[in-house]
């Protein structure tokens, strides 16, 4: 047995050395879009002295909302766009915002429908996030850790794909950390020609149809309700807004989306701001995927969101919104109440 273990140990050590060599070539994710988490999280800390409007979701949020316009519409809130990628998963997003939100804040949830159809979190994104910021490991749920165990071996492939452009001396075709503005919005794509309609949905093998997992919808609704209940107990307001979906994707997945919306309408204990909104928009309003709006699409969506938020909470007669004095604010439940509104 000793000989077997010794030989196996040497063999594994050789593979580990190869792995370490590969890691040396890995440029890492510190320059990637995921790393914008650091700036977004820092902004939350910097603006903790006043009410905050925190927008939570996948990449539909930074590509689809203009936080500056939202801030102008609701000047009593400092707006932070926390959206990065759906691949972080709903658990990660909720745990992160839940750890940062405090009394008087408002959380605007805008998760992709995919979060209700399948487990969106993917281990390469979560591992990269933990490499970028190790303390984000506390935002992973038990299910996320289980997924890491199940698909962890696939990360080698992901790293190798990241190494390839570097070895070829080309810039990888992906968005980067400094493509976001200071409020967390994606702005780099505004002047780029959209590729969704012209290229993406016509490429070989493209399928707009989602791979749906059973049982996920009930779990996610429960998760959201628990999150909302915890927030309300701490004086944090939670609302939800559906992201608009491209027409192509809507047509391919209409059945599951209708099922999701009906379920949320019946069982979600969070106000939905735009239930009446047209769920799909023309493909030409999309940049490169069915979730990423062009600059024009972003403007339209922001305007509609502002209107729906105003309908949700009409402004008081004075025309001014009540302001919570900075000195009265504290972390987690210490601040006085006072009418909060938009």
């Amino acid at each position, binding site marked *: 047995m000793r000989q*077997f273990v010794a030989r196996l140990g040497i*063999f594994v050590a050789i593979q580990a050395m190869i792995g370490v060599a590969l890691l040396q070539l890995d440029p890492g994710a510190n320059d990637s879009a995921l790393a914008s988490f650091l700036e977004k999280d820092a902004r939350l800390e910097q603006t903790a002295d006043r009410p905050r409007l925190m927008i939570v979701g996948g990449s539909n949020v930074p590509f689809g909302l203009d936080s500056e316009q939202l801030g102008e519409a609701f000047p009593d809130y400092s707006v932070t766009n926390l959206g990065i990628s759906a691949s972080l998963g709903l658990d990660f997003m909720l745990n992160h915002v839940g750890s940062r939100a405090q009394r008087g804040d408002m959380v605007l949830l805008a998760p992709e429908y995919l979060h209700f159809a399948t487990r969106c979190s993917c281990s390469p994104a979560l591992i990269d996030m933990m490499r970028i910021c190790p303390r984000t490991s506390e935002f992973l749920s038990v299910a996320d850790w289980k997924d890491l165990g199940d*698909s962890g071996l696939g990360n080698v*492939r992901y790293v190798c794909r990241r190494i390839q452009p570097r070895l070829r001396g080309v810039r990888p075709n992906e968005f980067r950390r400094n493509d976001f503005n200071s409020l967390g919005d994606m702005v780099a794509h505004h002047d780029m020609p959209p590729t969704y309609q012209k290229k993406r949905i016509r490429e070989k093998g493209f399928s707009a*149809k989602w791979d749906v997992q059973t049982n996920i919808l009930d779990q996610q609704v429960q998760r959201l309700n628990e999150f909302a209940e915890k927030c309300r107990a701490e004086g944090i307001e939670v609302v939800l807004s559906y992201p608009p979906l491209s027409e192509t994707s809507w047509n391919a997945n209409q059945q599951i989306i209708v099922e999701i919306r009906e379920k949320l309408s019946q069982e979600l204990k969070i106000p939905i701001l735009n239930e009446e909104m047209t769920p799909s928009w023309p493909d030409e309003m999309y940049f490169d995927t069915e979730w990423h709006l062009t600059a024009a699409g972003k403007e339209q969506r922001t305007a509609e969101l502002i209107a729906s938020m105003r309908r949700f909470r009409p402004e008081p007669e004075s025309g001014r919104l009540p302001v919570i004095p900075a000195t009265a604010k504290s972390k987690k439940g210490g601040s006085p109440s006072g009418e909060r509104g938009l």
Partner: protein
Amino acid sequence: MTFTTLTFCLFLVAVFAAYWTLRTRKAQNFLLVVVNYVFYGWWDWRFCLLMLFACTLDFFIGRALQRTSVPFRRRILLTISVGTNLGVLGFFKYFNFFMDSLTSAGQSLGWSFDPFTLRILLPVGISFYTFQTMSYVIDVYRKELDASESLIEYLAYISFFPQLVAGPIERAGDLLPQFQQPRCFDNTAARDGCRLILWGFFKKLCGADGLGEIVSAAYRDIPDATGPQLVLATVCFAAQIYFDFSAYSDIASGAARLFGFNLMRNFAYPYFSQSLSEFWRRWHVSLSSWFRDYVFIPLGGSRRGKLILIRNLVLTFLISGLWHGANWTYVIWGGIMGVAVAIETVFGDQKKRSTSEVPGGPNLIPSPAVLARMTLVWLVVGMGWVFFRAPNVASAWLAVVKVTGSIFTPSTWSSAGDLIYGSRVDSLIFVLVIYLAEWIQRSKRHPLAIEHWTLPKRWALYTCMIWVILIDGSFSGSQFIYFQF
């Protein structure tokens, strides 16, 4: 906890280390029972309760059978065991299927009623361990086996984690004694076990999972798929299901060897068979032999004339089809195989090729006759796979029509190319590599039986395989196909 995951790899290492630090057989068996249930409970802890119930019931029925010689009592005990096991299996697997079928039949006769269906979660592996525990009781009843005196040994045998969720379905006479005897660490067996695990990983992650994309692309929407696309998808499915299932069996056997156990060989290069009968002696051997010993032979086997033989073959394959799943497509698949085997048995070549013979003959380049026989077997089996893979009977028939029609429309053949792009090209290359390796090494138990190579050469090959798996393997998290049965 699927085999091809980091979690399982860590689990296996931990169990291996703990197992061999224990000095006594009893302690090792107890550890195995614990880890078996941890492994099974990883899917859903409730599954453990059901399996524990089935195992405990059959253990005590076995003990009771051992103690009594009164035929009436023995039959009652056997009936309780078989009835309970089939009842549990029937409820979890077939309840909604039968309700839906009853409703459809009623509606076709002009009756209408509200079907009563339940949201039943199918416990993983129930078809496998149920058959395993049933065979134990039947063998004790037949006095072919003494009942186990130790509940721990029995639980360890039924729930043995390498073969728990997708076989091989081990006979008590083969596996139970291995739990009753002391085990010594065998260097050669352990090294071979590691090679089997590596080969299984390669087949699953580089072969099966990548092919699944091509198969799904066509079978997801059969009305939209062209005939040549369905032909390609069916060819790929034939490879996918073989790689997937045999990979599981290889990893199961390899893992078992690490603990000093020998599991039966479940796949013996079936696609190199020269007859359907030979195919079914090489494909899913544990299930085929189970149905042979507990269904085909009790029905009379081949001893009562050709008509009865045909009946018994067709019935056995129909039941085998139903075992695979709650869908008429599986039953039809079984029927097709049964009829084909019956025709071949009665009217075809009577030469019975043993599974110990080299499949496909001894020559590296097969003769035209061998090639023709292998191709014919493959065509019949392939047609059956259309039903096996299609989501329902109507789609299956449509697929068959399209597949057969595509032969006469060469202008559409190029449409098959639409399914092949990107990483799918790699999958097809891996298919060729795997088949080539199996053909060259078909006289050996598995292609990585390369002990005669020098150490550096072997390690170089293993290293290449590992990094090809890690870099090019499909880690989409897809389960093994047979988990759903």
